[in-house]
């Protein structure tokens, strides 16, 4: 019990650092909230240039809302372990009597403020500038799917962070390589079934692909879904459990490997 309390306190403390840092320098509000909304708008205009049906614009807005969460997982959690290594904080985490997952949870929760703000700005842009209409009846289900998606996504983020324990200077490239390719595979800006059944099925291992598809069906009333909502929700629940378990194992394995190979405290290589 005291272990659980310590871990929760550690997660809270790690999250608090993010909150304090965010308030200390507010330039991120502009660069990570308002300007990314303009990039989302760009994809709406691409569809307008193509003369696409208005529902495609709604797809873009929903995808734009969800991109922030992926970037928080990627840069704020997974790649963060690499930065911590370079800054010398990782050694301290390793020595502390707490789980690495508590630290990662703290990073995720602390970064959530900025991510949520970015998502709200894109949502407002969608509603007021692009007249996106949501299916009120499906919003509760969509919210449930959103929570499931977040649980499995953050489990995946913890798994990825274990890989970053081993990376050297290439870490930056690995993180960058997980941006546009993931935007493509997760169907952020189009229904994932447009990738073809085989690719879409493979992409479904990535929680956002299923989550966004299910949310489009429930919140936007899209009939271009890849699988029925119930199947996608069940798959997301299964992925949540799987990634949670794998994250725990991988963090332990990669930590041991990094220790054996002497990479845990290696900087700038």
């Amino acid at each position: 019990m005291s272990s659980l309390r310590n871990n929760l306190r550690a997660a809270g403390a790690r999250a608090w650092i993010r909150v304090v840092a965010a308030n200390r320098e507010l330039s991120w509000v502009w660069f990570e909230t308002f300007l990314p909304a303009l990039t989302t708008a760009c994809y709406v205009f691409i569809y307008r240039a193509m003369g696409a049906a208005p529902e495609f614009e709604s797809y873009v807005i929903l995808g734009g809302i969800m991109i922030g969460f992926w970037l928080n997982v990627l840069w704020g959690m997974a790649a963060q372990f690499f930065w911590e290594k370079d800054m010398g904080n990782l050694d301290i985490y390793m020595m502390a009597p707490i789980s690495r997952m508590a630290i990662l949870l703290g990073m995720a929760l602390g970064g959530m403020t900025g991510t949520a703000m970015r998502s709200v700005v894109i949502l407002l842009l969608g509603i007021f500038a692009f007249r996106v209409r949501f299916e009120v009846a499906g919003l509760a289900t969509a919210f449930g799917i959103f929570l499931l998606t977040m649980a499995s996504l953050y489990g995946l983020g913890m798994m990825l962070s274990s890989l970053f324990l081993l990376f050297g200077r290439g870490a930056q490239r690995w993180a960058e390589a997980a941006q546009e390719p993931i935007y493509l595979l997760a169907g952020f800006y189009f229904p994932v079934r447009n990738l073809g059944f085989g690719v879409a099925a493979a992409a479904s291992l990535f929680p956002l692909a299923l989550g966004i598809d299910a949310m489009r069906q429930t919140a936007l009333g899209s009939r271009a879904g890849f699988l029925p909502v119930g199947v996608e929700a069940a798959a997301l629940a299964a992925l949540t459990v799987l990634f949670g378990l794998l994250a725990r194992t991988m963090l332990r394995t990669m930590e041991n490997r990094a220790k054996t190979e002497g990479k845990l405290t290696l900087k700038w290589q």
Partner: protein
Amino acid sequence: MKRALRNAATSFVLCWKKETNWAGAWVYLPFALLRPVAGALLIFVMVRAASAPPDYFAPAWLGNAFFQLVPAVLGGLAWAVIEDRERYQMFKYIYLAPGNVVPYLMGHGLARAAHALIGVAALAAAGVALLGIRTPEFHPALLAVTLALGLACLLALSLALAGLALLVARHGHFMTESIGGVFFLFSGAVFPVDVLPAWIRPLAFASPVTWWLELLRRSLGLHFGSALDGVSTPAALAILAGFTVFCAFLGRAAWFAGERKARWKGLLDATTAY
């Protein structure tokens, strides 16, 4: 001048090595191509999903291909500041070394441009060889002059961003990505400027990237919308040249203003953690 060029050349080589030697060529090359190819495929799938008209695809594909240079160069100098100051903690030593910091940063920007050119060339080649894109005309002189002017303009703007990066925490990396996104919207890279609401269009006309991409398309005989049809090619070139001169002054002024403030606030060797 000679010393500045030598500094820039050394910095180019250093940045190129930093960018490439973290892995062997067989790992590095796919990584260099992954982002641009995935971004272009994203447009390709959107075109298929929305059944876009046939005349949309070629100018959009090539516009997107050339646009790869914009975020790479625009963020190149700022990223050099952030990486050297926060990660390698070397920035203060560059100040201690003989010579000026600006050529050092320019070398980094040019290396990132060269890095991005790999993606531009790959996308252009894939468009022609795999997707059947045909360019009705080819004006190599116009293409070369436009590329050179655009690159100079982007480097100057990047110097301004580097001045700003001196004053912000390490999330300045997102700053450069976000500003690249703003140019993506206001430059008609993947959709004609005509699609923007009339009240936003002046912002597109005030962006040098709009004119740069328009001239690049004209050098290949491509047409994307009608908003810039009334401007002749020599006039568009003159506008781009004007923007380049203006951005050169702006970049210099913004860099020195940022640098002066950073010195006073003690930010030249600042590191941030959160």
